[in-house]
């Protein structure tokens, strides 16, 4: 009844937020496409349509192809590690025990601390000269003092390092999401399975994990988005180096578009994020819709 008396109130209360987000997300999103088919550079004011030339030159660049491959490697490798680690960790954290809050806090730190700050901490731990990891390895006689691993200086090791540091950053986030899922499963269901004679792993894989699937999907979707679109860990640890071997799409877009002043090509590179993001958004809509129905 009241709704009909002030039908304009809802839209009026909603509009400012929508306009704000449209202006600063929607407009630049459209601009990104517009730039990518033009010749915009920092400092230049003109705009000429150049069709797909930027995409063509991007696709021909070996650095770009490497970055594209790295983006997928970076995302898939870290998310596999995160999923396994987070599930194991969530399982050990799900029941109440003394000290649980302290453990949860310690485990959460990598996620809540600013990621650029955590990464610089790792840069010190992986330092070429004073790395504490290398010190331990030398002490254990696993490596020779004059032949220590250059964690950030050698392409393969550098890629492994950025993947592990990113895993370190995202793992807590997935853990707490999965923890919410594990604690929501009614205790009597796995207990009933156990009474029926199913062992621990049988119960886990045939009863509880299937119940967990929707929440695992949510954790995975967020994890993929946060990883595929992030450049912070890589920017801090390696700047995409050595020789652009750890470059991913977002970092390459930054180096090309912002530091290299080639806005058009930078925009073209970042647009390669869109297909995967669209798929993720679609999957998320589906899972939100399912939650809405049930």
């Amino acid at each position: 009844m009241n709704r009909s008396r002030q039908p304009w109130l809802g839209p009026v209360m909603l509009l400012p937020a929508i306009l704000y987000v449209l202006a600063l997300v929607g407009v630049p999103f459209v601009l990104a496409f517009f730039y990518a088919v033009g010749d915009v550079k920092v400092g230049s004011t003109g705009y000429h349509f150049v069709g797909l030339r930027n995409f063509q030159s991007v696709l021909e660049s070996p650095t770009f192809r490497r970055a594209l491959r790295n983006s997928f490697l970076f995302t898939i490798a870290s998310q596999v590690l995160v999923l396994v680690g987070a599930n194991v960790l969530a399982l050990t954290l799900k029941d109440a025990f003394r000290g649980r809050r302290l453990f949860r806090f310690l485990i959460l730190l990598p996620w809540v601390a600013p990621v650029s700050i955590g990464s610089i901490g790792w840069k010190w731990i992986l330092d070429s000269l004073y790395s504490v990891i290398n010190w331990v390895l030398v002490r254990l006689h696993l490596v020779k003092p004059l032949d220590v691993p250059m964690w950030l200086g050698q392409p393969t090791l550098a890629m492994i390092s950025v993947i592990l540091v990113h895993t370190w950053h995202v793992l807590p986030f997935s853990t707490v999401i999965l923890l919410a899922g594990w604690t929501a499963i009614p205790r009597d269901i796995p207990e009933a399975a156990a009474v029926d004679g199913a062992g621990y792993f049988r119960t886990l894989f045939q009863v509880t994990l299937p119940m967990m699937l929707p929440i695992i999907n949510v954790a995975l979707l967020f994890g993929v988005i946060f990883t595929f679109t992030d450049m912070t860990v890589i920017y801090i640890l390696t700047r995409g180096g050595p020789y652009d071997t750890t470059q991913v799409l977002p970092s390459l877009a930054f180096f090309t578009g912002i530091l290299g002043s080639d806005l058009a090509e930078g925009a073209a590179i970042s647009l390669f994020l869109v297909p995967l993001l669209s798929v993720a958004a679609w999957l998320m809509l589906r899972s939100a819709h399912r939650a809405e129905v049930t």
Partner: protein
Amino acid sequence: MALSRRGVRILSRTVRWAVLVGFSVALAFPFYWMLITTFKSSPDLYNLKHNPFLFAERPTLEHLRLLFGETLFLRWFANTTLAGVLVVLITLALALPAAYALARLTGRWGERLGIGIFLTYLIPPTLLFIPLSRVVASLGLQDTIWAIVVVYPSFTIPFSTWLLMGFFKSIPPELEDAAMVDGLTRFQAFARLVVPISTSGILTVVIFTFTLVTQEFVYALTFISSASHQTVGVGVPIYLVRGDVYYWGSLMAACLISSLPIGFLYNLFLDRFIAGFTFGSVK
């Protein structure tokens, strides 16, 4: 196979503690390392013969003195706080009414719209920073803290609206109905009744927004080019390094100081953020 019940219990408990301790050590180690480095004198830090886990020389406050006395750290702290407060205010001013409208006034399509707004949170800074750098420049905001004050709400509003919408839905609508029978308008009921009883939801949004402001890296790096206008998140990792020289002691001190407080705060509100992320599919 022939393990007794008690054996199984002891085994499973041992495995759990081993997993927990292993993960905690691996995940918290960098922070422990920041702590050690903060108080270690430079000759001790940079001597390869010393055991890095122990103090071969007396602990020192020199790194902290350097950090607070001779770097822009406090300035960055002030910048971050100022930006944080302003972004929180903008976010609340826009997200509170929007969330209320979605929860109460827009019916079925409000829900869809809510999800749509939430999804914009998924469009990453690394897709928008190039065009935004031009938008910021054309507004004359480049290299000022105002650039991020204006841009950050574009990602804090969507998630905050989503969180608050869930919160408002949990308040019984009879509350406002009764107030409106007593002569208040719908908006008055919202402003005078619903907002005051929503303090815990609002607090969640405040903390969430504030942590996002301290954690953001890409936009601050892109829009702000002078060291003195930076935030902690970019200032510490980028501008505490002078030339090619890393002052690891004060650098790690800065890392420790800027991550622990936000960690404590976030931890307190964790469960509510998670409820937002899982679309309430876990109750």
